[in-house]
């Protein structure tokens, strides 16, 4: 954690979608640096470009201007070297594969040998506290467990960057609290860099070392908040004045960005 190596570097990033109703500015002049080991949340109303930004990092969208590097490479190179794991909003597990088989899927694609696959599956299942569920099928698991399996799948190969697009958005509050707590522990144990898209203020403040507030039309960054909270965060830290103060600042940032509506 001591070396401050930059993982994501974006400068003057622009992305314009051409639609039938004219151009849509999904991202305009986005500048951001994410250091190794950081937990960065992107928060903002829908249409602010937070997911688009994440997809640009993952080489799922192509920027129309500016510059971005991932691990010092272009996003395309980073993707080809499997530099990141991506967790989507839906778990997206294959119903015809067991939980173990689903986690094995990217490992098969990447050509890990069988023994290594087994070891990795066992390790990540333990990491997300799903040990014993390897032979179960997705429909036998609750929504929260499925999402944990999908996180395990993104952790199974050696990518030290984790991109998460509202992974807990479809889950209820209690499950979400639990998963947030687990995710923090996991981040602490693995030392991965995490970029996390959310629209929940408490979630963003609770999880992050850095909160990026974005606003729509055009999608842009309006505030970047470095969290003073300690790395060790029990759930009740959310009642402390420091926590509430950051949450307040995020809310103000969101309101300012929304001033034109």
């Amino acid at each position: 954690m001591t070396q401050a190596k930059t993982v994501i570097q974006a400068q003057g990033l622009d992305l314009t979608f051409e639609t039938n109703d004219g151009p849509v500015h999904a991202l305009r002049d986005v500048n951001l640096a994410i250091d190794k080991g950081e937990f960065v949340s992107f928060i903002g109303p829908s249409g602010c470009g937070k997911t688009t930004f994440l997809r640009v990092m993952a080489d799922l969208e192509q920027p129309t201007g500016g510059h971005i590097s991932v691990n010092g490479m272009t996003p395309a190179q980073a993707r080809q070297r499997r530099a990141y794991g991506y967790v989507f909003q839906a778990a997206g597990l294959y119903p015809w594969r067991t939980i173990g088989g689903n986690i094995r899927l990217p490992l098969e694609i990447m050509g890990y040998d069988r023994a290594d696959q087994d070891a990795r599956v066992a390790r990540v299942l333990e990491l997300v506290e799903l040990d014993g569920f390897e032979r179960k099928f997705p429909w036998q698991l609750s929504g929260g467990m499925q999402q944990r399996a999908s996180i395990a799948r993104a952790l199974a190969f050696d990518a030290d960057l984790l991109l998460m697009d509202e992974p807990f958005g479809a889950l209820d509050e209690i499950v979400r609290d639990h998963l947030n707590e687990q995710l923090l522990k996991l981040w602490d144990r693995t030392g991965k860099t995490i970029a996390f898209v959310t629209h929940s203020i408490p979630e963003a403040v609770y999880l992050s070392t850095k909160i990026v507030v974005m606003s729509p039309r055009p999608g842009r960054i309006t505030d970047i908040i470095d969290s003073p909270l300690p790395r060790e965060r029990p759930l009740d830290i959310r009642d402390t004045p420091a926590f509430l103060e950051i949450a307040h600042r995020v809310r103000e940032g969101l309101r300012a960005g929304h001033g034109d509506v």
Partner: protein
Amino acid sequence: MPVAVVVTVIIAIWYAAAVGLNAPWAHDKAKRAGQELGLAALVQDTWSQDKPKLPAPHQVGAEIWKTTVQKKITSKRSLVYHGWITLSATLLGFGFGTVFGILLAVGIVYNRTMDMSVMPWVIASQTIPILAIAPMIIVVLNAVGISGLLPKAMISMYLSFFPVVVGMVKGLRSPDRMQLDQMRTWNASAAQTFWRLRLPSSMPYLFTSLKIAMAASLVGAIVGELPTGAVAGLGARLLAGSYYGQTIQIWSALIAAAALAAVLVSLIGVLQRVTLRRMGMQE
């Protein structure tokens, strides 16, 4: 229970229709013999004519019984023998059609040029009446020395590949944007995406198509037996029956064909249920 009621009603209607349709002939006969026909005698006659316009169910049943159980299956008069001839052509054509249909679908999904050019031809091929093209297929193949089972299988294939193409194109395209993006984040090759995502996703579509293809395949095999003056097969039985006015024989061949289709389609249904349950795609 509701099924039994429906079947009973259908059989009742069938018997009633047999009386109506066969009555003129019965009256003719009675007049020539100078007899007056009572209702009971009329009914009895209409249900037991040799060459009725519409044979009664029990006549068809007796004919089927006679030509299946009571004949050796090697006999030319055995319905099992004829059924097997048709079945073998059906299955071969179904196999060809399925393989050809899947290959075409893969081409259409992966190749833009094929996507734009092949589908209209596939659809056009199905607008041609099979009765028009079947004799040509048989004549052409005969000219190059191929006869017997293969030409009929070709006609079966011609009918059965279509539902497979349509179903598989839809099935192979059924993975959503997120699943394809996910494959992309793992830098998966096109082949890996095909075998691990697209093909398994298409299974429910495939089985639905296979059911239609199987029925179409049987129709193709029977049609393929008609223009050749084939001596064997359910189609040949139909043709021979209509030459000699053997309506009972026609109906028993028809019922045999329908039963065959029902068995084949329900076999695929069983296969579908087992496979999809094992794949976790059906509760």
